């Protein structure tokens, strides 16, 4: 949210009365969005697979797909640049197993319903042979959903976005908010 939007929401809340001293405290620069132009963990071929997995988990419907909102780039930069080395190394091993597992089932060539089915099976039918592949997949799934729900487009257009709530109400019915989760 930028300064102008913040003031707009605050003005709504206070019935339009925003003091100049209040307005003056919103004098800050914008943070630069992270650089998504290069890859930090996956190679281009792996990255294509990550994108396919992300869109299999969250395909485009009447709302955007995971890659429509750049979730795959976030996954790459979080694993490549942010999470600690142990996590990164551990994930690298598990990812190799996932790649092998998917290649063994020609995942990339399957129709979408079969892709969904293959991933469902991997998640639900646990066995020791596919355990590492499953862990890598669960990690990707979890990250895909988390990053998807924290993008601006999803937050503002598909969830309930209330930047300056004003009041706290401890118990409301989900119907009061159309059974939509809060964006933030």
């Amino acid at each position: 949210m930028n300064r102008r939007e913040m003031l707009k929401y605050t003005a709504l809340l206070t019935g339009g009365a925003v003091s100049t001293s209040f307005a003056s405290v919103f004098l800050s620069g914008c943070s630069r969005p992270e650089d998504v132009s290069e890859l930090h963990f996956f190679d281009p071929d792996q990255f294509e697979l990550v994108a396919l997995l992300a869109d299999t988990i969250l395909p485009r419907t009447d709302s955007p797909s995971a890659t429509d909102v750049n979730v795959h780039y976030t996954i790459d930069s979080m694993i490549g640049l942010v999470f600690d080395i142990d996590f990164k190394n551990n994930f690298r091993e598990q990812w190799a197993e996932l790649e092998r597992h998917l290649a063994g089932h020609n995942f990339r060539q399957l129709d979408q319903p079969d892709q969904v089915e293959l991933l469902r099976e991997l998640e639900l039918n646990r066995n020791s042979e596919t355990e590492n592949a499953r862990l890598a997949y669960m990690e990707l799934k979890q990250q895909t959903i988390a990053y998807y729900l924290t993008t601006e487009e999803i937050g503002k257009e598909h969830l309930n976005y209330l930047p300056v709530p004003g009041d706290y109400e401890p118990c409301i019915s989900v119907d009061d908010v159309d059974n939509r989760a809060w964006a933030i």
Partner: protein
Amino acid sequence: MNISDQTEFDAIVVGSGISGGYAAMELCTKGYKTLVLERGRMVNHGDYPTAEKDIWDLPYQNRVPRKEIEKHYKKQNRLAWWVRQDNKHWVNKDDEYPYDEDVRFDWIRGHHVGGRSLMWGRHCYRFSDIDFEANKKEGVAIDWPIRYADIEPWYDYVETFVGISGQAEGLKQVPDGKFLKPFPLNCAEQHLRESVAEKFPERVVTPGRVANLTEYDPEVHKGHRGRCVARNRCWRGCPFGAYFSSQSATLPVAEETGNLTIRPHSIVKEIVYDADTGKATGVRLIDAETREELEISARIIFCNASTVGTTAILLNSRSETFPYGLGNKSGELGHNMMDHHYGMGATGILYDLEDSYYSGRKPVGFYIPRFTNIDEETKRDDYLRGFGYQGNARRINNVPEGVIGQDLKDVVFQPGAWHIGMTCFGELLPYHENRMYLNFNKTDQYGIPIITFDAKLRENEEKLREHGVQCAVEMLEAAGCVNITSSNDATAVGACIHEMGTARMGHDPDTSVLNRWNQMHEVPNVFVSDGSCMTSAGTQNPSITYMTLTARAVDFAHNQVVDGKL
């Protein structure tokens, strides 16, 4: 706020955080020309660069990249939840603020005007006589020189100004205060409260008591305050002034008197002692920008540089009279380091109350005050003292197992199941062996000896922890939670950011540094009213007690001046 070259004041306050700001306000209000010295940079109310950023405005999901952590925040980042994009402007860089450890010690800090009052947890619970009497009853360390009745009116005084939201419960272990209306428990938290009360009547799940204004009265909440609008971004700095900080409350009130001067970038090296008068004459400081050393004098000195900062200054203030640090004939200065310890608790999922939700983001969840060793009925054989919990209930992302694709898209925007979590905070006893000291053979970039820590948890804490985790699980079970997971990963001392006790109060100059008025036994015009004054740690979040003792100490100092004794 003025920045001047003046070198003489009525009073000097070292530190501008939660207790330093309070000392400054009280001194200025009583007419003392007061200089506040702060080693870090200036921060004015409103200098909160991330306050309006949403998660998508913050790079890397609000996380800080590994390389930057490695370079600047390795120690600070030991707290997995601490260094983030939205608050790192308040976090000290390790490479600029070195310290040593004989035993791991997580010294979590931010040096800037306002100090940790900007990013504190804001929980405020009164100490009770269960705390003030514990050392004496159990023969641990030394007796507190005060009791609840001594400071009760001062709690009233400070809480009224600070503005504490909370719910009166009539509990002897955390006495009720001057509360604004609470942030109510949400449906799942209320369910937890009722289920726990039914099974464990002595355990009370109550709305956390926090220094956020649920009601705003401009006549009372002076400074740059305003009502909380439930954004839950307090630690970034609040443009609404809805939570209490030096910036939002004490410093503007101090400034309005015309008596305040604030000098950032001022690293106090030592307090200067005059053996002839038996008093301190002022402080010697290094200007962090010019590296110039200068001396500033005052009639009264309040040391509020934080527990570790204050103790380091006093240990470095060596003279013929006090070769081991100012006012340290007892030898206790630097010892009895305490904190609270955590890294223990439990979480669970509640598949119930699916129709219930909440609106707004309250800046607090629930609190469960200590419930063991508070009387004969609750006495434990395996450990002394007790523990309390902070926690919350919220609805998490809706991600049913094995569901992806179109099916997941159909449900992923809905609120998911209730998640209830609680973290246990335990008391750490005052062990003489737990200490900090200065390494005079090694100095920092300003030529000041390096602070070194040597403190750890011991057997009493280990025993207490086991019970704390067990009780957390029991309470979640009572509420009907499933998928309960518990943890017990003991934190290093310091990690709770409640470090305290290294210049303790006591009856006797032979065993303590400060008297019952936070005045140095041996140097009557030096007062210490930050966490270093504490004689035991309690289980309560301590800031409100520091502020209370500070206001009381200033009042005492003022009376001494009026009586011609100072």
